[in-house]
């Protein structure tokens, strides 16, 4: 007789549909890459501006339209000219100027005694900082000034106002993503409510509601959004409410289709028999079960909304200066194409990458949730 008791097996964990869909999603390499890229870009947009050395609206007057470079600005060959200009502003003459690593030494002379506060003129420039008087002649006609060369890095160059493009791209991305997500949420709320009610109530109400959707569908909504923004000003909230109000139509149709098939299921009949009222039925049984296609549509909707918002910004109808969005940055780059092509190239790269990643993710989600649709 064996005394080995039968091994008690741990209960086999069930795998829900969502789990299966998630596995399929991860296995699709394009989707996986898209998720990684999206997370990286989102992290950059969300946390980047906080850790960036420059603010997006910080103006560097000396560095207007400087090309992108991994070497720090200022360039060594410009320093002497800058110091000469400082002397000109301060109404003194530059006698002598040397740069040694990060420190500079300059000697100013003047026919009249020099006020030691002339260092303020030096500090006012973007190139020099922390200047102090290290020596003065007895008659005050010449002073020696020493200070630090202030280094700035502009990995993507600066724009026409002397603002760092990288910081502006990060802020622009943040605004674009925010508007994208918020407008999609607006679409979601309106569309899901509309579609669920229309599909569940059915009958003539459904007919009327869907006729309204059809009529609205044939209007050139983009133009109406532009009209709204023109007439009522460039309000940040108005922009994403207006964009959300265009895109809910498809969402309503999808949810209505799902609702029509859901409402014949037994659990709905059971809930109704237990006395649940219509609105609670819709809220607690119908809507949670439409989440699948809704999520897929949301990932298609977000890039569309971002595109629409960038379209508005490109035309000059988006967020107000100095805030910017990727569309506005691209518009600025387009107008400066010949003199400063980097102003077009870098925002375009970020924009297109974000859109691509979102699109591939949407495709992957669609395949994951509905594999027979391949």
């Amino acid at each position: 007789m064996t005394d080995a008791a039968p091994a008690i097996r741990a209960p086999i964990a069930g795998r829900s549909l969502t789990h299966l869909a998630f596995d399929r999603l991860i296995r699709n390499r394009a989707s996986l890459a898209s998720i990684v890229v999206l997370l990286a870009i989102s992290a950059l947009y969300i946390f980047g501006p906080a850790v960036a050395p420059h603010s997006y609206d910080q103006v560097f007057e000396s560095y207007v339209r400087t090309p992108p470079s991994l070497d720090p600005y200022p360039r060594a060959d410009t320093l002497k000219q800058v110091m000469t200009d400082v002397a000109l502003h301060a109404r003194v003459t530059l006698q002598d100027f040397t740069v040694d690593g990060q420190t500079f030494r300059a000697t100013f002379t003047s026919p009249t005694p020099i006020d030691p506060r002339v260092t303020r003129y030096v500090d006012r420039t973007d190139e020099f900082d922390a200047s102090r008087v290290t020596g003065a002649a007895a008659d005050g006609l010449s002073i020696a000034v020493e200070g630090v060369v202030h280094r700035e890095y502009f990995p993507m160059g600066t724009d026409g106002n002397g603002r760092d493009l990288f910081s502006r791209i990060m802020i622009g991305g943040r605004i674009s993503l925010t508007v994208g997500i918020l407008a999609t949420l607006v679409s979601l709320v309106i569309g899901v409510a509309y579609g669920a009610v229309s599909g569940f109530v059915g009958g003539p109400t459904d007919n009327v509601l869907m006729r309204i959707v059809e009529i609205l569908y044939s209007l050139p909504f983009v133009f109406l959004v532009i009209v709204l923004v023109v007439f009522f000003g460039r309000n940040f909230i108005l922009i994403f409410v207006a964009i959300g109000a265009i895109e809910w139509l498809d969402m309503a149709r999808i949810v209505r289709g799902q609702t029509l098939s859901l409402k014949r299921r037994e659990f709905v009949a059971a809930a109704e028999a237990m006395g649940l009222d219509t609105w609670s039925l819709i809220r607690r049984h119908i809507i949670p079960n439409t989440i699948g296609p809704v999520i897929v549509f949301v990932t298609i909707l977000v890039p569309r909304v971002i595109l629409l918002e960038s379209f508005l910004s490109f035309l000059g109808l988006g967020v107000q200066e100095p805030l910017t969005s990727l569309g506005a940055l691209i518009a600025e780059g387009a107008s400066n194409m010949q003199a400063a092509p980097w102003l077009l190239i870098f925002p375009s790269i970020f924009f297109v990458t974000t859109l691509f990643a979102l699109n591939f993710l949407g495709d992957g989600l669609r395949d994951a949730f509905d594999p027979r649709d391949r």
Partner: protein
Amino acid sequence: MLRFVLRRLLSAVPTIFIVVSLSFFLIRFAPGGPFNVERALPPQIMANLMRAYRLDQPLATQYLNYLWNVLHLDFGPSYIYRDFSVTELIGQSLPYSLTLGTFALLIAVVGGVAVGVAAALRQNGPVDYALMSVATVGLTVPNFVVGPVLSLIFAVMLHWASAGGWGQGGPRDLVLPIIALALPQLAIFARLTRGSMIEALRADHVRTARAYGLPPRIVIVVHALRGALLPVVTYLAPAAAAVLTGSVVIETIFSIPGVGRYFVTGALNRDYTLVMGTVVLIAVFIIVFNLIVDLLYAAVDPRVRYD
């Protein structure tokens, strides 16, 4: 067939009506009227202006006047371009937009179908993947990115085409705006055609045609393509709408004096009547085009006619 046409016409009327009414009420209720944009006017002058533009009559009368005028294609005076009426402005700029749009749509349809058929015939081969990847790029990248980038490469760097303006309307001036306008729609048509062509090539009647020994070109063009073109015809209407929307941006980028650019300058300068006139025109155009495409579709596919 006649009943179908009548039914579609009837359903287009309320839509046009809604657009026209919406435009009227938006103009009337916009904050900041047409006359006190720059500085406040003394009350007598205001009263005179209101009477001259018939803005002092009751709203219902104004509404009926507006509807009557719109039927006669009179959208009122432009608020910014003071000497011109909106109809004149739109009339001036419409030919340019129409030329651009027609060429763009033609290139999109012909090019898209050609690319789609080529990809479908070499399904899952390297040519197929290459063509469909390019199509995806054309779909995803918006036209306000494609336009300047094309301009940068071909006009600024290579000097092969001119960077903007209508010029003499020759090919060198128009090639970049037309391509920028056509590219996204070409990509969509290519994907559509490829999908439906792949299905059509498996159909029974194509197999029969091949079994008869007909030359491959006849089989593809006459038998397979005819069925595969149905989604293309369906998409013609949204494509035209997209070309119209895209023309707003493209005309701004390439400085083409078309309706789209007037729309943008009107929008930026708060020229309400110009903006609303353009919107009504575009809405009517889209609705009419939808109608024509629906009729075309019913003519091509008999199953649709008798629903």
